[in-house]
């Protein structure tokens, strides 16, 4: 697919003797929501990390907006994570010392924005995700679903073009998970961000525009007639 915003080609990644990815391809267009599915241990998270430039593939390329992530130095890659990407993981991505609003404001502050301005913007996002009352609580004091909404707010606060979500509802019950997915898909539709949604749940994958299956480190896309 040409004109893809984010594209992985023949990505191979091994951890010691374990081959996590054995030639994975994936292309995501702007504003597209793609579910990455597959059994546990198949390499979904590894693919996501490679796509986000968090880990470097052993071979193969990852390009974002025409730029090769593999050849990028730490500083511009970090800047990319700060401004162009957003992350929502299963849990643990919030800094426990900071309040929710400070957590959401973090990418802006790391980008050099003044505290007051950054936190005002963060509060707006908390409102959009219907968790404004949690602003001054610490992550330790909120429920799993609320924490995920805070995490989504943080992922979206800097106006990213790609959201990387790894099992964002993995620790949530069906109803809470659905709320989180609804809010997230609503928000990305509003902002036009693309989403890489790693999940093994079909009901979560159903929020995506299309799905890619990872099996034994390889991607497979099924085109139906």
């Amino acid at each position, binding site marked *: 697919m040409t004109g893809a915003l984010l594209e992985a080609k023949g990505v191979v990644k091994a951890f010691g003797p374990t081959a996590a990815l054995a030639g994975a391809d994936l292309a995501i267009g702007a504003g597209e929501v793609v579910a990455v599915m597959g059994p546990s241990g198949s390499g979904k998270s590894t693919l996501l990390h490679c796509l986000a430039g968090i880990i470097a593939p052993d071979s193969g390329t990852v390009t974002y907006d025409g730029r090769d992530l593999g050849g990028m130095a730490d500083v511009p890659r970090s800047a990319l994570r700060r401004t162009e990407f957003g992350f929502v993981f299963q849990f643990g991505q919030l800094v426990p010392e900071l309040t929710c609003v400070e957590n959401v404001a973090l990418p802006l502050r790391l980008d050099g924005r003044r505290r007051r301005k950054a936190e005002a913007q963060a509060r707006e996002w908390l409102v959009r995700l219907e968790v404004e009352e949690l602003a001054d609580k610490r992550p330790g004091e909120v429920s799993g679903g609320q924490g995920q909404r805070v995490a989504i707010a943080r992922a979206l606060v800097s106006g990213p073009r790609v959201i990387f979500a790894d099992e964002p509802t993995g620790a949530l019950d069906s109803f809470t998970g659905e709320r989180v997915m609804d809010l997230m898909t609503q928000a990305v539709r509003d902002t036009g961000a693309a989403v890489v949604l790693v999940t093994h749940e079909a*009901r979560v994958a159903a929020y995506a525009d299309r799905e890619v*299956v990872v099996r034994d480190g390889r991607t497979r896309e099924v085109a139906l007639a």
Partner: protein
Amino acid sequence: MSIGHSLLGLLRQEPRHGYDLKRAYDDHFGQGRVLPYGQVYATLSRLLKNGLIEESGVRPGNGPDRKRYAITADGVTDVDQWLGRPEKPELYLQSTLYSKVVIALMAGLDASEVVDTQRAAHLRSMRELTARKREGDLADKLICDHALFHLDADLRWLELTEARLADLGKLVRP
């Protein structure tokens, strides 16, 4: 699902005209298909005959649908008994999906391909259902959820089957 009990259930909420009844039924239970008028009236007359509903007034005018129906005490008992009775868990032992996988396997085809193709199809349906949920009201959401969970269950079964087969293959092949 019993149409009689569904109509009784709708009447348990409030008396309705035949046409309203059909509309409500289509909204909540139709799943895209409408109930023919004939079937509505046939069912209603059976319920009248059994004393579970009664006519509770006639609308002035001369349209075909002037009668209002209300539930009787017997009818309420009947609906309540129906609600309280568990449904027999349906065993999908004879579903087509099952047959397909077994046949694919017997034919020596790649089971994962069957699974992937089926998943793609299932997900397409699930995507539509998820989209419908977004627009629909509560009843829509409930019915979509119901369908989604069933499809989800199918997929899980498929994935589990595939994993089992992979395990089995590992045992058999080397």
